[in-house]
C-alpha cells in the first residue's frame, strides 16, 4: 500500500502535466469540433450551437480539404524517406573512420535544425528566385531552363520538400550517429574475417543493427511531416493555387483567419486520426521486418 502511494506520488507531477496540457485541451477541442463556433460566437456566446458531426461531414465534402490532405501525404511520402536516406548518408560520412573534424561536420549538419525557419526562408527565397537564384544559375550551367520554383504549382511542393529535408535531416542524423556508435566493433571484425567487403558489411551488419532506429526515426519523421506548416506558411502561404496547402495550414486558415473554430477543431481531429493510423501502420510493418 505504501509502495503504491509512493508510486502515485512520483507519477503525480507528470500525470498532472499531461492532464493539464494534453488531456484537457484535447477534450476541449473535441467538444469544440462538435459545435459551430465561428465569428458570430465572438459577438455573442449564445450564438454557439451543438451540431454533432456536421463539421466532419462538411469537411469530408470539402474539395480543399482533400487537396490539402493529398499535398500533405505527397510531402510526407516523398520528403520523409528522403530525409531518412540523407540523414543516414550524412551519419555514415560523419561517423566514418577516415573522416576528419567530425565535431565540426556534426555541428554544420545540425545547424539548420536549430536555425529559425523565418531566417532560413529568407535565404531560401533567394536561392529559389526564378531569375537571380543560385539554384537556377546552377541549372543554367548544365543547360536546364530556369524553373519558377515557388511560382509554378508543379514545382512549389518539390521546393518545399527540398527545404524541409535540408532543414530537418540533421536531427535524424544525430540519432543515426548515436545508433552507429552503439554497434559493437566485433561484429564488423567478424564480418571482415568472413571476407565481407564494405558494402556487404553495411548490408548485413549496419542495416540490421539500425532496425529499431529506423522504426523510431520513421515514426518521428512521419508525425512531424504530417503536421507540415511553417515551411509553406513562410515560403508560399499555401499557394500557388493551393499546391502547397497542408492540412495544418487549412486548419490555421479556418481557425485563425476566418475564426471557424469548430470547423478547424474538426480538421485537427481528422489529422490526429491520420497520424495515429500512420504510426500504427509503420509499427506493424517495421516490426515484422525487424
Amino acid at each position, binding site marked *: 500500500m505504501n509502495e503504491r502511494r509512493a508510486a502515485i506520488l512520483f507519477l503525480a507531477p507528470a500525470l498532472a502535466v499531461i492532464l493539464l496540457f494534453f488531456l484537457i485541451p484535447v477534450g476541449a477541442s473535441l467538444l469544440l469540433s462538435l459545435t459551430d463556433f465561428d*465569428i458570430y460566437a465572438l*459577438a455573442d456566446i449564445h450564438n454557439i450551437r451543438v451540431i454533432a458531426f456536421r463539421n466532419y461531414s462538411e469537411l469530408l465534402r470539402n474539395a480543399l480539404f482533400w487537396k490539402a490532405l493529398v499535398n500533405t501525404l505527397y510531402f510526407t511520402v516523398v520528403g520523409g524517406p528522403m530525409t531518412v536516406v540523407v540523414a543516414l548518408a550524412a551519419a555514415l560520412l560523419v561517423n566514418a573512420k577516415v573522416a576528419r573534424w567530425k565535431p565540426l561536420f556534426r555541428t554544420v549538419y545540425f545547424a539548420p535544425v536549430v536555425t529559425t525557419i523565418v531566417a532560413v526562408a529568407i535565404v531560401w527565397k533567394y536561392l529559389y528566385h526564378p531569375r537571380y537564384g543560385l539554384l537556377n544559375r546552377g541549372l543554367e550551367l548544365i543547360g536546364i531552363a530556369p524553373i519558377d520554383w515557388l511560382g509554378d504549382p508543379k514545382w512549389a511542393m518539390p521546393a518545399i520538400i527540398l527545404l524541409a529535408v535540408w532543414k530537418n535531416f540533421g536531427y535524424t542524423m544525430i540519432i543515426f550517429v548515436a545508433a552507429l556508435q552503439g554497434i559493437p566493433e566485433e561484429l564488423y571484425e567478424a564480418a571482415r574475417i568472413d571476407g565481407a567487403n564494405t558494402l556487404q558489411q553495411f548490408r548485413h551488419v549496419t542495416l540490421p543493427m539500425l532496425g529499431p532506429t529506423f522504426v523510431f526515426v520513421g515514426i518521428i519523421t512521419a508525425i512531424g511531416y504530417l503536421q507540415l506548416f511553417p515551411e509553406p506558411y513562410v515560403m508560399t502561404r499555401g499557394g500557388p493555387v493551393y499546391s502547397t496547402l497542408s492540412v495544418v495550414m487549412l486548419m490555421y486558415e479556418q481557425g485563425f483567419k476566418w475564426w471557424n473554430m469548430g470547423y478547424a477543431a474538426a480538421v485537427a481531429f481528422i489529422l490526429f486520426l491520420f497520424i495515429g493510423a500512420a504510426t500504427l501502420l509503420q509499427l506493424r510493418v517495421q516490426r515484422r521486418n525487424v
Partner: protein
Amino acid sequence: MNEEFRISNEELRKGRRQGILHSKFFIRNSKFIFLLALAFSCTIRPAHQEHLKFWGLGHEGEVVAQLLPEFTRRTGIRVDVQQIPWTAAHEKLLTAFVGDATPDLAQMGNTWIPEFNAVGALDSLSLRLANSSIREGDYFPGIWATNVVDSVVYGIPWYVDTRVLFYRTDLVPNPPRTWDEWLAAMKHVKERRPNSYAILLPTNQWEEVTILALANHASLLNADGTEGAFRDPRFVAAFRFFVDIFRRGFAQAVANTQVANVYQGFAQGDFAMYITGPWNVGEFRKRLPPEMNGKWATAPMPAPRASDWPGMSMAGGSSLVIFRASKKKDAAWKLIEFLSEPAQQVRFYELTQDLPAHREAWKMRGVANDPPLAAFRQQLEHVAPLPRVPEWEQIATNIYQDGEATVRGRMTVEQAAADLDRKADHILAKRRWVLARMRGQ
C-alpha cells in the same frame, strides 16, 4: 559598481525617510543621482502626451509614418505605427480583438468592415461625423457606402480602388460604352488577329463576373443578406454575357497563374483588353516595353445599356476605423481627420500611388493631370459596394468556381445560377439563424 549602487539605494531610501540627504552622500554618488535624474526626466515627459497605436497594412503602413510628424507637431499626439503585412492582416486583427489587444485605430480593407462590425470590434463614427471636418459629400457615394452597416458609419475611406478597362488603342480605337459595342470591339480584334484573344478574363477570379453583375444592377444577395439572389434575371444575364465571351472565342479560359507575364502578353497583343485596378497604371508604365508608350489607355466600364454608362464597378480600397476597446478615441478621430485632409491625401497618393478618397484631392495637380487616372475618376462616381455580410468572401469563391465550370461547358448558365444560390444559402444558414434569434429577443 553594482555593490555601491545597492548601498546607495539603501541610503537613498533612508535619506528620503529622514527627509535629509547628506552632502557626503551626494558627492559620493553624484553619478548615480545624475542617472536617476536623467531617468526621471525621460519617463515623465511623455506622460503629458497621448500615444496612439495605429495599425497600417502593407506598403501603406510603411509610408504613413512620413505623414505623422506634421500631425504630432500640430496636436502633440504621438503615433506608434505598427506595420502588418496584408497576407496576415485579417487573422492579426481578429486575433487582436479576441485577445483584447486591438490598437486604437487601424487601416482596414473596406470589405472587412461588415465582419468586424458583426463581432462588435468597431466603434460607431456617426456621432463624431455630425461635428467634423469630414463630410460625407466629399466622398464617392459607392465607396462611402462600404463603410455603412445598417445606417451606422464605421469607417472613413482612406484610399479607394476600383476596376476599369485597360485597352490597346491600336487594336481598340474607340473604347466601348455598351456591352453590344464591347462585343463588337472584341469581334473586330479577333477577326484581325485570329490567333490571339480580345480580352483577358482570368477564370480564377470572381471580380470580373461580379463587376458585370453590378453593372447590370444585380444585388447578388437578397435585401438583408440572408439568401443568394443569383437566379435573379439581372445576374443570369450578366453571367451569360461573361460566358458568351468565352464561347465565342474572345477570351481564353485560363487562370491568372497560367499567364506567365500579363505585361508581356499585353505588349505582344495576346489580348487587347484587361479589367484591372489602379496599381496597374504604374506597373504598365514600368513594365511595358517603350514602344507601347501611348498605345494603351483606360476607360470606364461599359454598361449593358447606353443610358447606364459608365457601367458600375466595385467599390474597393481601405478605410480607417476606430476600435471599440480604445481609450483614446478622441485622439484617434483627430488622426483620421488629419489623414482625410485633401493635402494629406495628395501626399499619400504621391507616396503610395493609391487613389485618394477625398474628392478635393482629385482636383490637385499630379492627380488631376494624369490621363490614365481620368477613367478612374469617372468610374469612382459609379461604384457599388459588394454585399455587406461577413460570409461574402466565401460566397465569392463559388462564383469563379462555377464560372469556370460553365465556361468549360460542365454546367449550363441556369444550373450555375441555381448552384450558386444553393451554396450561398448553405453558407448563410448561420447568419439566418443568428438574425432570427436576435429578432426573437
